[in-house]
């Protein structure tokens, strides 16, 4: 159990929760969070948003009853969390862009801190959130509300690209990257139960066989991913 320091709404549906304690984790990894209530049963996989000296933060959207419950927790209350899980984004050298769509911006903040020279592209459907956190650490941040953020990105300019967001956005970016030498890594999402690779509930089909999003992922080189398997999740 860990104590919640703050749990603020950035928009009516988007929250940032800060939890007290010394936690570790790499960019793109996640923790399993649970309010401690008996329902819903399962913890929720939430990517690490930020790590401070004695705290860890999670940016999350209220989508179902699990996240609804998380959003009702108050500072001083306790939460169960386990992690860090998953592989995270790779360590790279050279030009890098970070492309996030909506909630997919969350796992990119640690990468922006780790690579201040990276160009950041943030796309939102209707309302932006969390942009200031990127502006505070990145040299370049471009934001687009409505339309496709991918249109602003020229993959040929980057040796590496890290991206997270809705599947159509990731697929558009993948198509745009074809024929360039840029290496694109994308973070995927799936319903999870155990979070540690035991239940095979989050398995996706890739070009190299079945892979567990919680264990071999959530980050995959784009050439491994079968987008057909990601749609409709």
């Amino acid at each position, binding site marked *: 159990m860990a104590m919640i320091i703050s749990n603020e709404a950035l928009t009516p549906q988007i929250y940032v929760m800060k939890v007290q304690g010394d936690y570790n984790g790499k960019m793109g990894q996640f923790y399993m969070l649970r309010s401690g209530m008996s329902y819903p*049963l*399962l913890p929720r996989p939430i990517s690490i948003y930020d790590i401070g000296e004695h705290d860890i933060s999670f940016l999350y959207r209220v989508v179902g009853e699990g996240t609804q419950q998380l959003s009702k927790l108050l500072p001083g209350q306790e939460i169960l969390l386990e992690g860090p899980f998953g592989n995270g984004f790779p360590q790279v050298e050279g030009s890098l862009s970070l492309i996030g769509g909506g909630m997919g911006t969350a796992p990119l903040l640690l990468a922006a801190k780790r690579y201040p020279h990276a160009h950041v592209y943030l796309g939102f459907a209707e309302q932006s959130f969390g942009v200031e956190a990127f502006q505070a650490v990145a040299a370049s941040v471009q934001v687009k509300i409505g339309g496709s953020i991918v249109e602003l990105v020229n993959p040929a300019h980057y040796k590496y690209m890290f991206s997270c967001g809705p599947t159509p956005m990731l697929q558009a970016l993948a198509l745009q990257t074809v024929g360039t030498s840029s290496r694109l890594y994308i973070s995927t999402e799936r*319903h999870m*139960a155990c979070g540690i690779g*035991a*239940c*095979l509930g*989050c*398995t996706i089909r890739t070009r190299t066989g*079945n892979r567990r999003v919680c264990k071999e992922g959530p980050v995959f080189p784009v050439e491994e991913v079968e987008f057909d398997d990601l749609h409709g999740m």
Partner: protein
Amino acid sequence: MISMACNIAGVSMKNPIIMASGTYGFGREYKEYVAPTLLGGIVGKGLTLHPKDGNQGVRINETASGLLNSVGLENPGVVAFLKEELDEMTRWDTAVIANIGGANLEEYVQAVALITENAQKRRTMNRRGVDMLELNISCPNVKQGGMQFGVQTEMARDVVRQVRNVTTLPLVVKLSPNAENITEMAVMCEKEGADGVSLINTFSAMKIDIRRRRSVFENTYAGLSGPAIKPIALRMVHQVAQAVSIPVIGIGGISSVEDIIEFTMAGAAAIQIGTYNFVQLRAGAELVEGLEEWMQREKVNSLDEIRGII
């Protein structure tokens, strides 16, 4: 002096807490959170003769106090299990139970024969092999095989009989709550030489994605587990335990020490933890420790004192 030890079909276990198939991988993933040696036993991921990719689409979906799964028996196959997983599992001081599924009778028989042969070979080299088999005739999540055998007693009889013919290993049959008559099924297993029965597997169930106007799962139906099914599992364990003299292993939504006691009072010789492993990463350690504390507090020296008292 408190003892949690139990004996299932000749296999001694330090406590009655066994990790259920499909919820614990082959134990490796959990070992940094729960020392395998704390546990009574581990049932490995359901195995088939040949490797299986499992189902496409959504595999996991949460429901009120329960979990729907449609993993579809994704597994590396018996040969890869024996080669890549068994060595590590047998290094742990905990019972190693192999759960076997099949698309047809021959697959069951061949898979069990391979594991038995492997156990015998290892024994001649003074090495541990699989300690016990759990025959899965009750997986609702594969189109072919699995549950079709577990619904009708006469169909299940063939599988149990033929498998019994090719193995000397302790054999437990995992029963389906979807069986036409689970008590009759258990009695049949005993008659055919099974050393125990474990119950229940998941209920065939469903969830609809109203936005997309289709079932959430590619196979339409999925298996329901978790606290939602516990009272029904308990009733079934109680009925079966009264009808057979072989050990009954209770499974179904067990999520607390109190649940373990209830199943024991209903007649279970041991229990398996499934969905609760996902709720609480350290479920095994928590329950082993909690059970010991409960026994001390209640001055119960052995679970035999309360087993089947209802």
